């Protein structure tokens, strides 16, 4: 895992512009929101932070992950790696690890801005839970979507339904009173992440349910996606 992930981190580092932009944009968005919402009380920041976190998970972990997997498959890198003795899940995990780490770094940058502006969460552990479970769910869904993504240039099309579900789920959760969020709603991508992030600022019930649903779905779907994964672009 370390050898594969190390190579993937090195490949990511070969795009310094992408890394700088990945760090700068959350910082810029954070500062913009702090400036625009100066009159909003601390408790009102949960929904906005949740939507921002869902956006990061959607674009970096999920869409980026799907595109990377499709590209590595097209380059025959994944097929070659299957001869390494590593487990299939390890190979896919190693390819996705740098993007997962980047998502968490972006979250840290964004939240750092909010904390610096005195708008930080009162229960930061819930924010960590939201970032970790959301990133994991984004990566699992990236493997699922890569199954039906024959080439990297098609990733923008194949990721759009789940990307819209992620973002739409975030808005749905923000528009629903925290105590009215049902178990069925939590299964929609983006709802659990937003719900947990909101709870980090506002408190409220349903925290355990949100963590359980997103973790359970990831654990059930991940092995099925690894099994269905197509390793050879000619299949």
């Amino acid at each position, binding site marked *: 895992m370390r*050898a594969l992930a190390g*190579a993937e981190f090195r*490949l990511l580092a070969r795009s310094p512009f992408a890394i700088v932009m990945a760090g700068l944009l959350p910082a810029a968005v954070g500062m913009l929101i702090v400036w625009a919402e100066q009159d909003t009380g601390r408790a009102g920041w949960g929904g906005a932070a949740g939507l921002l976190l869902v956006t990061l998970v959607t674009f970096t972990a999920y869409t980026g992950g799907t595109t990377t997997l499709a590209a590595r498959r097209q380059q025959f*890198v994944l*097929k*070659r790696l*299957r001869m*390494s*003795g590593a487990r299939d899940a390890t190979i896919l995990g190693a390819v996705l690890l740098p993007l997962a780490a980047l998502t968490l770094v972006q979250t840290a940058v964004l939240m750092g801005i909010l904390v610096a502006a005195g708008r930080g969460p009162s229960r930061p552990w819930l924010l960590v839970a939201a970032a970790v479970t959301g990133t994991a769910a984004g990566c699992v869904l990236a493997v699922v979507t890569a199954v039906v993504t024959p080439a990297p240039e098609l990733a923008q099309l194949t990721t759009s339904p789940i990307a819209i579900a992620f973002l739409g789920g975030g808005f749905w959760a923000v528009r629903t009173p925290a105590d009215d969020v049902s178990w069925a709603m939590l299964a929609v991508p983006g709802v659990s992440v937003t719900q947990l992030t909101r709870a980090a600022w506002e408190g409220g019930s349903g925290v355990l349910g949100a963590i359980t649903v997103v973790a359970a779905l990831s654990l059930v779907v991940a092995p099925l996606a690894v099994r269905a994964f197509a390793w050879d672009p000619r299949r």
Partner: protein
Amino acid sequence: MTTTVACRDVSFSYGPYDALQGVDLEVRPGELVALAGANGAGKTTLLEILLGLRRPASGTVRVLGREPFRERRRLAHAVGAVFQESGCAPDLTVAETVRMWQRLQRQHSRDHDPLAELNLRHRSHVRVRQLSGGERRRLDLAVALIGKPRLLVLDEPTTGLDPESRELVWDLLRHRRHEGTAVLLSTHLLDEASAHADRVEEVVR
């Protein structure tokens, strides 16, 4: 002596298209066997079955006494492979690629320098995407040789190589054979295969 590769009556289909029908094949340690056949005859499919990447529809396959589709991970350290397509990440350098595979194969021996063996040491710091087709082929082979595998499965290993590099590869394979490594390769270059292989087996659909 144990047979390195043993296939009996192996068949494989892509949907309605029969790629392989009733193939028998045996390769012993230290033997170099070439697979010849027209395009689409099933050579690559057969090699991928031996590497555990495809499950045969029928028949039995044993590589070093194991069933490759079920035990691919156990065989990984004993089998070196070269595919038709490179499969090395284009933005890693040559040295980074070899280092990654040495770590994956848990081979850190300084006795064996695959880059020197394939005359690629002077290209260590070049990214894979900047290599010529022939150099990339030699890098594929360098990666396959890491860990001193007991079986080399090579899909058209000399395609795209100049005569000098081709000779280098055949010398290398000859040397490995004398150390007991079994070599199974596919090729379109029948003259070359007849000159260097112990046997040429024709794959017919």
